[in-house]
């Protein structure tokens, strides 16, 4: 027996083993923490549930388009504002320069005038007073223009804020649309009797027209699955699931934008064959 081992088993080895156990757990904990910080977050990105019997591709192209347009408009406005500010600065600088020149010129004239006779000087003085008055007038006009410009800017700012609020409203509108789509999807799923000829991988795309009361006015097969009974079953499902009376509570503008016509995909994914 070597002495190292005997040293370890002092007091029957209890102290050593307790320390070893605690150290081991700390190591495991440290490893988990390290792994946790080292791994990128994409591992935990959750995705929307995709395994649904019937899928809706309609993710509101109108809404998306409109949001894109809004974003572009805001950007354009910001750019314009910047340009306007630059312009203003440039104008101010020019103005200053002009004044400076004016002043220099005046000083020179004064020097020339000092060489002239006193009567002439008096006359000059009168002229100068006149000129100063004009100058004053011009300056006042400029100030007025400046004020007007500032007001315009404030108005533009206010308009921009209003647009931002509208965008926020659109975001909540998106949620309303989502829940509406989920409802329709649920009703249609319940009403959908698949024919025996239905196979996995079949896909029928239907376009339905709806009234604000939730009634379906027409159903059109946009893309056939190639199996007539399947298409018919999908159409029947839509008709027997209507009316979607919950849509009545929806604000009319949201309805018009998103539900007036709706594209649905029917795709069985849970069949055995």
């Amino acid at each position, binding site marked *: 027996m070597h002495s190292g081992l005997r040293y370890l088993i002092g007091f029957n080895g209890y102290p050593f*083993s307790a320390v070893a*156990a605690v150290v081991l757990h700390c190591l*495991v904990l440290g490893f*988990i923490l390290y792994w946790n910080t080292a791994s990128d977050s994409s591992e935990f990105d*959750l*995705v929307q549930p995709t395994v649904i019997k019937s899928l809706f591709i309609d993710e509101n192209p109108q809404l998306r388009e409109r949001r894109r347009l809004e974003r572009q408009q805001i950007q354009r406005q910001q750019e314009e504002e910047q340009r306007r500010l630059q312009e203003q600065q440039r104008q101010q600088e020019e103005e200053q320069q002009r004044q400076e020149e004016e002043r220099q010129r005046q000083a020179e004239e004064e020097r020339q005038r000092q060489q002239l006779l006193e009567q002439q000087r008096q006359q000059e003085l009168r002229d100068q007073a006149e000129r100063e008055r004009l100058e004053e007038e011009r300056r006042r006009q400029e100030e007025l223009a400046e004020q007007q410009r500032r007001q315009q800017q404030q108005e533009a700012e206010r308009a921009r804020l209003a647009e931002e609020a509208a965008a926020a409203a659109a975001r909540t509108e998106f949620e309303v649309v989502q829940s509406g789509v989920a409802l329709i999807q649920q009703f249609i799923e319940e009403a959908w009797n698949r024919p025996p000829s239905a196979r996995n991988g079949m896909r029928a795309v239907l376009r339905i027209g709806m009234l604000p009361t939730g009634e379906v006015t027409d159903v059109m097969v946009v893309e056939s699955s190639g199996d007539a009974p399947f298409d018919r079953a999908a159409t029947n499902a839509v008709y027997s699931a209507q009316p979607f009376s919950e849509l009545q509570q929806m604000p009319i503008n949201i309805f018009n934008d998103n539900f007036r016509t709706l594209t649905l995909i029917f795709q069985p994914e849970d069949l055995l064959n």
Partner: protein
Amino acid sequence: MGEQLGPMQLIFGASLEVQIVIFILIALSIVSWGIIVQRYLVLSTAEKSVHNFEERFWSGIDLGLLYKEGSQMQEEGVAMAGMENIFRVGFKEFMRLRQQGNVDGEAVMEGAQRAMRVAYSREEEKLERHLAFLATVGSVSPYIGLFGTVIGIMNAFIGLASQTQATLQVVAPGIAEALIVTAIGLFAAIPAVVAYNRYSSKVDSVTGSYITFTDEFSSILHRQIHTTG
């Protein structure tokens, strides 16, 4: 999702019941690992000392000399382990009974054997200490983990009931939180079960060699009685 969801966030964000269960499981795991290490040290020294002592015993050394060597070592403070203990107890009893003179040979043998049996069972007890705890941890901690999981999933579904629109994002963290408890339960149980199986077979082999040694030693003593007496 903006925030990252890792094991640590799950544990610290869990409900109180689940956290208590996790705490119990981690405590069990620490204790069972302590026992695993301690038993490893004890059993490996026992195995080594069996080997060493058997070598010395069968080297042809005089038994009285071997006994004296052992006494000397004991005085030096070296702990007597396993097989040597059995030998010393048996030999001591044998010598004492023989020195009384008028004791019958069979009675001497019987006395020595009885003393060795007692020493043997004491040694066996020493080796098997705490192994039952490992077995308990191994079989119970998965159930404790499952209990925590059930509570966690229950909480997740209660939270789901209050939602109007059930999405995966609502349920997923609760279920992940619940599953991590099972993971910790298994983390505690697996080493305990492995160590229990390993150590009980080790104890079996060591006690088996003790029994064999006891038999061989009594046959030697028997021979000694009948050749001299």
